[in-house]
């Protein structure tokens, strides 16, 4: 696969992931506005799902909060995916310097999630 084709493929996958995330957020947002749009806005922390399982269960029950959080999680996953795709691409074209760089960054990013 040429670099140009790879870049176009990564771009399309990113766009797909972003639109999927956006679709969840838009549906959840509209549902939230229909249910609570006329209530006063309170600028404070509210209980929200903080795990993937919790978010998934809420989204499956079509809860507006669950759908929005699922969209946000998809957006985060899309960022990680781009690095994994690049790693795969550079390995496929035997550019091991850059596959190592991608792997290193991915490792540091994932490690920092647990380390912090």
């Amino acid at each position, binding site marked *: 696969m040429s670099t140009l084709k790879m870049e*176009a493929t990564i771009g399309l996958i990113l766009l797909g992931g972003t639109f999927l995330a956006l679709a969840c957020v838009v549906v959840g947002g509209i549902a939230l506005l229909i249910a609570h749009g006329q209530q006063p*806005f309170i*600028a404070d922390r509210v209980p929200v799902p*903080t795990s993937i399982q919790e978010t998934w269960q809420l989204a499956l029950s079509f809860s*507006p909060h669950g759908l929005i959080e699922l969209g946000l999680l998809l957006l*985060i996953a899309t960022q990680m995916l781009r690095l994994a795709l690049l790693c795969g691409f550079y390995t496929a074209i035997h550019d091991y310097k850059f596959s190592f760089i991608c792997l290193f960054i991915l490792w540091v990013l994932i490690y920092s999630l647990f380390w912090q």
Partner: protein
Amino acid sequence: MTILFFSVLLIAFSILAGLLGALTGLGGGIIIIPVLVLLFHINIHLAMGASLISVMATSSGTAAAYLREGYINLRIGLFLEIGAVVGAFLGALLMTALPITLLTILFSLVLFFSAYLTIKRREEQDTFNASHPWALYLKLDGTYPHQNKLSHYYVQNVPLAFLIMCIAGLLSGLLGIGSGALKVLAMDQGLRLPYKVATTTSNFMIGITAAVSAGIYFTHGYMVPVVDFPVFIGVIIGAFLGAKLLKRIHHHYLRILFSIAICFIGIQMLYNVIVGNV
């Protein structure tokens, strides 16, 4: 204020944030955070969570277009990201050992000086016809669309740019600032890249860095749907508009826009020092 009215207002501000982020390579945080904190009186952690959403949305919203048009240099972005993540790690380790207030003041002064350097550079006058040896070894040179054709550029001063990126990572770990500003500066002032290549490559990479912090904010409950959904929708719209506009705007105007934006960040940082938030 009702949730509906708040959402409409926030979508409007977020469109502006996405547009600015897409054009400057800074992400949308420089508008989102002050709007949420100063205008809507939202907790700073929730505002920072929303800012991370805006950075990822800008990055994802523009990546496909900028990759298709041939602006982004992925190899440079990845190479510099090593410096950023190593610096961020060191920053987190040194957090208690360094004088944060002094660093904040120094960094804001660096931003003002960088704004001056950014406006001062005239890339048309660059006459490079050879690349730095590291750039040749890592195959960092590239082409970009300019005046309806692909123009070649030669990458300079790779070690300097790498050092700037380490400092960028260190500062983002220490001061909690986005590293987009220094990423653009490392590519513009260090590697001497065409400005649009610098901003678009920065845009591509900041999404990856923001994802890590976003994961942490999510698990701590700082991603609040009622705040984040208008930000996501607005920023995506703004980012798409920005990606369309980039081709038509002369890089000199982008330099001015970027310089104003980083001066604004510098003023925000000095303000935080004065009011005792740092």
